[in-house]
């Protein structure tokens, strides 16, 4: 398993744990131990799971298992793949902080945080698609 795949999969597992913890907090609101502001984490819970865990795990396995781009560059552009990893994770982490903060405290700094997180995740998604497209082939 190549190093970048290990990074993708291990990071994905951390997100899975984080998503389940946030979800635990959301579920425990009714018990009265969790502060009301925790509700602002609701979209974060979902996206930590679907982007941080599911999509990231898929990205790591695709990098590793899909047909080779070429003998010299089996994964396509390694730099683009590194950018996918960093943009996805920087973007998602920033979202996890900035989106609830914007709900609770709508100042311009958090607005920029949310906007930059959107741009980073979008860049990661598009770079993944471009870099994977030509590896979807017979062999």
């Amino acid at each position: 398993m190549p190093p970048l795949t290990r990074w993708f999969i291990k990071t994905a597992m951390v997100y899975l744990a984080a998503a389940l913890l946030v979800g635990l907090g959301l579920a425990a609101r009714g018990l009265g131990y969790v502060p009301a502001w925790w509700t602002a984490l609701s979209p974060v819970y979902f996206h930590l799971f679907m982007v941080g865990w599911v999509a990231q795990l898929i990205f790591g396995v695709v990098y590793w298992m899909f047909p080779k781009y070429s003998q010299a560059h089996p994964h396509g552009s390694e730099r683009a793949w590194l950018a996918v990893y960093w943009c996805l994770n920087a973007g998602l982490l920033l979202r996890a902080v900035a989106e609830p903060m914007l709900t609770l405290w709508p100042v311009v700094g958090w607005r920029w945080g949310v906007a930059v997180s959107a741009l980073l995740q979008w860049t990661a998604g598009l770079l993944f698609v471009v870099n994977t497209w030509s590896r979807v082939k017979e062999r």
Partner: protein
Amino acid sequence: MPRLSRWFIRAALVNLAVGFTIGGLLLGHKAFPVHPLLWRLFPLHIELLLFGWTLQLIMGVGFWIFPRFWRSRGNERPAWLAFFLLNAGVWLAGLSPMLSLPPVLLTTGRLLELAAVAAFAVHAWPRIKPPGASGRGF
């Protein structure tokens, strides 16, 4: 990678690109509101990413790597049917609330998605077996 997997996976990649673009627009809109009409894209975001990307990619990879019967993948027809049903269902269910189409179209979209999963299961069920086995047992 067989032809049908290439179709499934390329369609999944297109859905990922469009779904992430909509997600990025919605998130950007939360930061700096552009126009309330943008929220109309929300159901399409969900449909494209949950079913059009995640589910479709899994079907494509499953069709490719599940155990085979010697060199054959068994009955491929239901898997092809799943491809067409899923894509029709995702776009119908995603676009109809956005375009305020009659609610029966949303239900039809969801039904097509359900039928796609059933068709894929008909194809894949016998392939979920030890390598070399006939696929008739459990």
